[in-house]
């Protein structure tokens, strides 16, 4: 081990990276599990089973007397949200399914009135009866861990093979003096154990620290303003440590055992004769390398082919890390552009603050005018949404709709044929009266509060390009034979109707952060003033519980000003309404932080994957003095100059670093092309923001590391004495 330090280093690096990855994985999984359990406890409660019934204190005490019960609490609306129940907490979760039926029996409650907290129990691998949810967290983790271990074995066993091959001559001698294959195997595995003990411990500890950092980052990047999200607090359990060590041990042991088994089976003669020199089984030309680097290029190509097995780890890890990194960068860039185009840019001039006014109808929300008066507010629109139906008669359909085939392409409930025509969804946006009047002015009709404006447009359903939708008139305008009234029908009971005048058919929408007819292209959207809604709501109903306040601040508002404005709106509504506010700039920043956070995490994984390859290249090149000594001596003996040897090294380094990139690029380009097509994004839009620089940096980092490895190897190789090699009798 002392003699072949470079190979030992490769084994140590491999073991360290394996331990680091697996420890990181297990640490992250444990914290994901912990977070999910905490979330369920926060949202649904930490009870394990629930028995319906109006229980007295004595009953609860009787429940608590059960050996595995930790606590029993009365819950007034625990059963079905209406009936009282007893929430039971168990100290031993394994006893929940066994003890709860006994408790119910004792209390005289039928078994059907028992409810289990299926989501929480599933976190402890307990499947509650009747729980049909998939509960994939554990199986997914086991699958990922197995896949990671398998990938690591494939990747790192070669480092062990290299290290073991370096002493094959010595093994031959051992074998020739009578060491059995078993003894050789044990010797090699012991050696691996001694080499790996330190790195495995260090890797595991660093993995734990890494998972703590990542858990912290999950709080920092998305921010804490995501509604319903609670802080993730890092935790660790001794069992997780044991599991991590077991997974690492198994991975390293299998990786070491594979080459040890092969070498232990060699005959003494095979082992002694094997001088570990790189051989080419078949001759194969390297025309490109020969053209670029001359005969040195050809020699480099041949040497790389002969080293193919030894460099497989590097080739795979560079290929996958670069591929993953480039794809990740492109996907996130596409996603950022897409979100920007379809959300932030589209609604940039529409809203700055959105407030959901919980459980308040539009007529009950009285603060719109006061919000408009706030300093820095340009406009504020209060609105509520409702659902309704409407029949579109054959005669009402526009020529354009007819040319699209009418409703023939509508699916499911989008359009149902009735005697009077097609029954379609008619979502309603109810605007406060002032905003409705402003909308009328915006579309050029005299403001009135006794009629509706119909969004008279339908997307060309024959064109799947959702990014650049083509809108066509839905109905005939009144002056072209269309109706001047619209009959809205109650959703679910279409016999209940309300006939309202139509003030205008338009393709323009009011400045609201809303999307229309995206899922159901055949929706016929109606904009109504609040006064009109007040008159018809009892007939057709269908209004959502909440109202919304869409606030547009003055031009050039800053994030701090918006936050201050949010505070003022909150103060105005304090005690009167329950508000949930969003701020456009904060949302934009949060989205940005989330993307950067995810990119950091994925990027770190890609870098870690690349580090495995870099470790392999270093272990291989640092072993050149031993492994390729004779090869270099041969080059020197025919008169290859140091400069030409350097050229050969450059060619090898270039191929090692650049080939994975060249192999990945077509895949990345094809994937990006596919994604652009699927998202109907123009190539030039993507190219303008394409992540060339980060990809280039990643590529340069890999290339730089490889160059460094080959430079160090070159320095070592220069110390080879041709005379010494020629004196070596084993030179074949």
């Amino acid at each position: 081990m002392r003699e072949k330090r470079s190979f030992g280093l490769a084994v140590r690096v491999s073991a360290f990276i394996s331990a680091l990855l697996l420890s990181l994985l297990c640490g992250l999984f444990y914290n994901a599990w912990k977070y999910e359990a905490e979330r369920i406890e926060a949202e649904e409660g930490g009870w394990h089973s629930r028995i319906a019934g109006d229980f007295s204190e004595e009953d609860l005490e009787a429940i608590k007397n059960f050996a595995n019960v930790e606590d029993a609490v009365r819950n007034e609306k625990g059963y079905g949200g209406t009936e009282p129940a007893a929430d039971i907490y168990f100290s031993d979760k394994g006893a929940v399914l066994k003890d709860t039926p006994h408790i119910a029996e004792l209390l005289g409650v039928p078994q059907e009135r028992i409810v289990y907290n299926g989501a929480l129990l599933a976190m402890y691998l307990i499947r509650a009866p009747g729980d049909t949810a998939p509960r994939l967290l554990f199986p997914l983790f086991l699958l990922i861990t197995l896949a990671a271990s398998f990938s690591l074995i494939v990747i790192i066993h070669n480092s062990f093979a290299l290290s073991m091959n370096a002493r094959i001559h010595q093994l031959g001698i051992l074998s020739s003096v009578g060491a059995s294959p078993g003894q050789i195997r044990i010797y090699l595995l012991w050696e691996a154990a001694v080499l790996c003990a330190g790195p495995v411990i260090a890797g595991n500890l660093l993995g734990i620290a890494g998972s703590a950092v990542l858990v912290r980052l999950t709080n920092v990047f998305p921010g804490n303003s995501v509604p319903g999200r609670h802080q993730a607090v890092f935790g660790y359990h001794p069992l997780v440590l044991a599991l991590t060590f077991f997974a690492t041990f198994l991975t390293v042991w299998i990786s070491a055992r594979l080459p040890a088994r092969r070498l232990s089976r060699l005959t003494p003669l095979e082992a002694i004769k094997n001088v570990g020199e790189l051989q080419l089984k078949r001759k194969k030309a390297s025309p490109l390398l020969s053209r670029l680097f001359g005969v040195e290029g050809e020699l480099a190509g041949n040497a790389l082919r002969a080293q193919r097995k030894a460099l497989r780890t590097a080739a795979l890890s560079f290929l996958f890390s670069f591929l993953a990194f480039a794809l990740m960068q492109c996907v996130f860039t596409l996603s950022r552009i897409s979100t920007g185009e379809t959300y932030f840019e589209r609604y940039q001039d529409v809203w700055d603050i959105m407030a959901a006014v919980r459980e308040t109808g539009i007529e009950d929300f009285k603060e719109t005018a006061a919000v408009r008066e706030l300093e820095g507010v340009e406009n504020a629109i209060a609105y509520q949404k409702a659902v309704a139906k409407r029949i579109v008669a054959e005669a009402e359909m526009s020529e354009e709709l007819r040319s699209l085939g009418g409703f023939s392409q509508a699916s499911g409930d989008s359009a149902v044929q009735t005697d009077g025509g097609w029954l379609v969804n008619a979502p309603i946006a109810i605007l406060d009266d002032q905003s409705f009047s402003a909308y009328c002015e915006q579309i050029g009709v005299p403001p009135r509060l006794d009629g509706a404006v119909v969004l008279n447009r339908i997307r060309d359903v024959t064109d799947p390009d959702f990014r650049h939708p083509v809108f066509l008139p839905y109905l005939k305008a009144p002056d072209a034979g269309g109706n001047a009234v619209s009959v809205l029908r109650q959703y679910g009971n279409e016999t209940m109707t309300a006939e309202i005048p139509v003030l205008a058919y338009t393709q323009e929408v009011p400045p609201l952060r809303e999307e229309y007819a995206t899922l159901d292209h055949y929706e016929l959207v109606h904009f109504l003033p609040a006064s009109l809604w007040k008159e018809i709501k009892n007939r057709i109903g269908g209004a959502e519980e909440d109202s919304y306040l869409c606030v547009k601040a003055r031009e050039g508002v800053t994030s701090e000003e918006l936050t201050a404005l949010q505070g003022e709106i909150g103060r105005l509504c304090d005690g009167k309404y329950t508000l949930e506010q969003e701020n456009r700039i904060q949302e934009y920043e949060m989205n940005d932080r989330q993307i950067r956070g995810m990119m950091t995490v994925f990027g770190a994984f890609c870098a870690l994957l690349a580090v495995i390859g870099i470790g392999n290249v270093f272990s291989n090149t640092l072993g050149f003095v031993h492994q390729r000594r004779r090869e270099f001596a041969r080059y020197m003996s025919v008169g290859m100059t140091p400069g030409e040897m350097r050229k050969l090294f450059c060619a090898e380094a270039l191929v090692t670093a650049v080939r994975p990139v060249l192999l990945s690029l077509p895949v990345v380009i094809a994937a990006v092309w596919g994604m652009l097509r699927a998202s109907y994004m123009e190539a030039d839009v993507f190219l303008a923001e394409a992540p060339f620089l980060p990809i280039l940096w990643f590529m340069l980092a890999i290339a730089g590391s490889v160059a460094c490895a080959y430079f160090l190897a070159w320095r070592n190789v220069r110390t080879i004495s041709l005379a010494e090699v020629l004196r070596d009798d084993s030179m074949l």
Partner: protein
Amino acid sequence: MEILKCEGLRKVYGSGRGQVTALDGIDLSVSKGEFVAILGASGSGKSTLLHILGTVERPTGGRVIVSGTDLSKLDQTQAALFRRRKVGLVYQFYNLIPTLTAEKNILLPLTLDKKKPDRELFDRITGALGIADKLDALPDQLSGGEQQRVAVARALIYRPALLLADEPTGNLDQKNSKEVVDMLKLSNRGLEQTILLITHDEKVAMEAERVITIEDGRIIGDERRR
């Protein structure tokens, strides 16, 4: 015409009590077209002499002049270029590049210099050495004798001033040994190639026209046989 001249050539390995003198004041002169055998037992210093003549090693003292070049003044690159252009080296274990075909091995010194081979010379050499039909083979697809012939062809392709052969028959059976020695003789006569053959085998040495015997780093005999 003198092609090789050694004056007071010394080579000492190590220092202090572990010091070993491999060559101790060698004076030697070889003329163009001569076939000289250096005969000596193992450890006599004959391989060290060859390594110094082939610029593989530097002498500790004295001067070596090959074809007008003072070898002691060459740096690493110049030594490599000298090895490539001025001397042809043939080793006991052939030293062929295992990843190149026989033809590419033979042409390697020229290819490194980006020179086009003289096809006529190439055909003559490979024809004379009997390897014209083995040119596409990789070294490990050839027998020991064939590999040594390829090594000889590679040493001759640049028409070097001096062909240095270090125990070229040491790894061959009797038949192949004879063939290789015959080939060296042939190239000596046919191409007027100066050859310095190092061997411990007296029988092989007797094939040369001049036999220099070396012992403990000193020349103890210099016999012209014809």
